């Protein structure tokens, strides 16, 4: 088992940071529980907190999880297969799995859940909880379908929506839920967690190393733990200055960045394309590629053109979402970057 899963806190009390938030969740779980919209960057501990809250609500029963496969039929008689993770008290769904048909799932499934009463008479709560993952990827239609359901069936049903940002959640949903922000842990908090895990695993913990991992992880606890485990798996003796192996894809992206900086020619774009394709075929999301590439390039260039590079990076990232062929936009960004850099260098020549 990975450290990430093995040492995941199971109860609200054992969470190591955001104590304020934990006590609030606890208070909610023991009072009357509202619909929640939990948002925050990835690796901040949203899911962990929700599972702990569910446990607080229902007791250990929620940990017995089974996976159901359900079939839904759309209005056009298309069959959709959909996986549901469920315990007797709660359901967990990722409606974005079915793409545009998420509305059907939301309508059918939620109503079905909402219209049946809790079977277990010994249950601590009368309502069932439905956890909706990736709520920010729900289509407008699906979100609209949620609106009245949330009000009408509130005696039988509570929703917990999980999202990375609230930007894509429509206002009517936001005004019906309690917003819970889970901020990423600070580097110090990550260091503490790493030390704690190291102690439990009986590993020799180095302060300097933990600190470096924490900084390198970009305040993402999941990533920090994975890196931490990787370092210990790869090295027999771990020292403060043991190099941190970046993931393959990240190494490849820094290689691309180096190549772009080294030579500014159409031929180079062609070479880079092969690498970008390589990344895409390995299912690295194009947004991640573009973002990582941008932040790898930024330190290498002069301050004056940084703003422009960011501007175009954001521009092409936006295009990525509108178009459906990522490679065009990635390549366009590379070409634009080369042009920016070249014209900047040319200007320098004129000046002198």
């Amino acid at each position, binding site marked *: 088992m990975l450290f990430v899963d093995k040492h995941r806190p199971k109860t609200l009390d054992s969470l190591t940071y955001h*104590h304020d938030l934990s*006590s*609030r969740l*606890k*208070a*909610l779980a023991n*009072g*009357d*529980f*509202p619909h929640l919209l939990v*948002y*925050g*960057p990835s690796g*901040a501990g949203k899911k962990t907190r929700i599972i702990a809250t569910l446990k607080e609500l229902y007791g250990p029963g929620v940990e017995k999880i089974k996976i159901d496969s359900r079939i839904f039929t759309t*209005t056009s008689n298309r069959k959709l297969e959909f996986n549901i993770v469920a315990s007797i008290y709660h359901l967990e769904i990722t409606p974005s799995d079915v793409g545009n048909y998420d509305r059907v799932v939301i*309508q059918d499934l939620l109503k079905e859940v909402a219209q049946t009463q809790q079977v277990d008479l010994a249950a601590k*709560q*009368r*309502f069932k909880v439905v956890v909706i993952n990736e709520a920010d990827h729900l289509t*407008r*239609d699906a979100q*609209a*379908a949620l*609106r*009245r*359901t949330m*009000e*009408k069936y*509130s*005696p039988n049903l509570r929703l917990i929506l999980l999202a990375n*940002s*609230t*930007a*894509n959640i429509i*206002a*009517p949903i936001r*005004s*019906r*839920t*309690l*917003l819970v*922000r*889970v*901020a*990423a842990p600070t580097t110090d908090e990550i260091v503490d967690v790493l030390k704690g895990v190291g102690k439990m695993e009986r590993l020799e913990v180095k302060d300097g190393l933990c600190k470096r991992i924490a900084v390198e992880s*970009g*305040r993402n606890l999941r990533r920090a733990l994975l890196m931490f485990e990787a370092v210990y798996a790869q090295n027999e003796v771990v020292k403060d200055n043991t190099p941190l192996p970046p993931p393959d894809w990240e190494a490849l992206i820094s290689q691309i960045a180096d190549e772009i900086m080294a030579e500014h020619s159409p031929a180079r774009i062609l070479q880079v394309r092969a690498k970008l394709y390589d990344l895409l075929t390995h299912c690295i999301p194009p947004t991640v590629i573009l*973002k990582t590439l*941008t932040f790898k390039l*930024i330190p290498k260039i002069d*301050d*004056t053109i*940084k*703003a422009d590079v*960011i*501007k175009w990076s*954001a521009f092409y*990232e*936006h295009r990525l*979402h509108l178009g459906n062929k990522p490679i065009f936009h990635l390549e366009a960004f590379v070409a634009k970057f080369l042009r920016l850099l070249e014209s900047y260098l040319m200007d320098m020549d004129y000046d002198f």
Partner: protein
Amino acid sequence: MASNFFDLKKRKEAAAASSSSKQKAGLSQAADRPVPWVEKYRPKTLSDVTAQDHTVSVLRRTLQSSNLPHMLFYGPPGTGKTSTILALAKELYGPELMKTRVLELNASDERGISIVREKVKNFAKIAVSTTTAANASKYPCPPYKIIILDEADSMTHDAQSALRRTMETYSKITRFCLICNYVTRIIDPLASRCSKFRFKPLDEGNTRLRLSSIAEAEGVKYQEGVVDTLIKVADGDLRKAITFLQSAAKLHGAVKERTGDDMEVDSGAKGGEITVRSIEEIAGVIPEKTIDDLMQSMEPRPHGQAVYTPVATIVQDIVADGWSAAQVLLQLYNRLVFSDMLTGNQKNQIVAIFSEIDKRLVDGADEHLVILDMSLRIAGVLGDTGS
């Protein structure tokens, strides 16, 4: 059937049953049922509806004449559109008759063209049910049914067109009430068949009145300024304000009960008292200090130094703290547009940036890049004073 859910009595019974299984009452009031306050304080009669004086007075007159036109309610969320029509229906029919006379469909129901053709048409077609004498003496019970199409702007255009003739053919025995946020998404032929009622965002005075009366009824204690903050963050959306108030009350009310524990309570908060900060936290408002820092970092530097590094650091922190980009946009907008330091031309440019960024956010672009881009571009505009 959807109409069952109007049966408030049944709903309350269910709610009461559920609360009896829980021994603990989360709030100061022991008899409190776990019903959201939004539902609990939903206006029961037309005269309870807050702030929509014009609409209510028109509807009241139609109530007396017992002749209702087709209606189209539109306005921003949380202004009382659904509440108004439900209250009206109840005043017309009384709770019993409402079950057979009112059909409510909303976006959670399948509303494709087939449903409009079958369910809506069938309901529109059936003869008006008779009423008992007892009921008739209490309520006007006019001889027509009401079909409420909530969130009508999420209906497809085809489904809307299918309604056109249905509305006219059965107008003798059926009245339609369409409810939507954006009147522009209702096709013209439908809109022209209805009398339109605009629901405006609630003004400050009415929101304040309503909030303080709810707070009083629930026995909530709050600090000075909490209501003002609520009004500010809710921006005319009463439902939002009430939800926030309830959430805050729950958090603090519950914390109060366990003061013996070693739990961390918001610093400066006395037990059971809602603080301004907690409202802001619930609403997802970014602390002024963070925005100050961001503004500071965007100020032009002396000697033409680039602003990139300080801006990037702060933006990274904002993103890692999980603040929503839309909220950053909104608060920055309020700061900059009302700032006296900027020239009109600069404001023009900045507003253009905001509009583009907002579009990108809605399209689902990456928040980190978008905020960074926005901050850098605004910084560029700010630094442009000289030329």
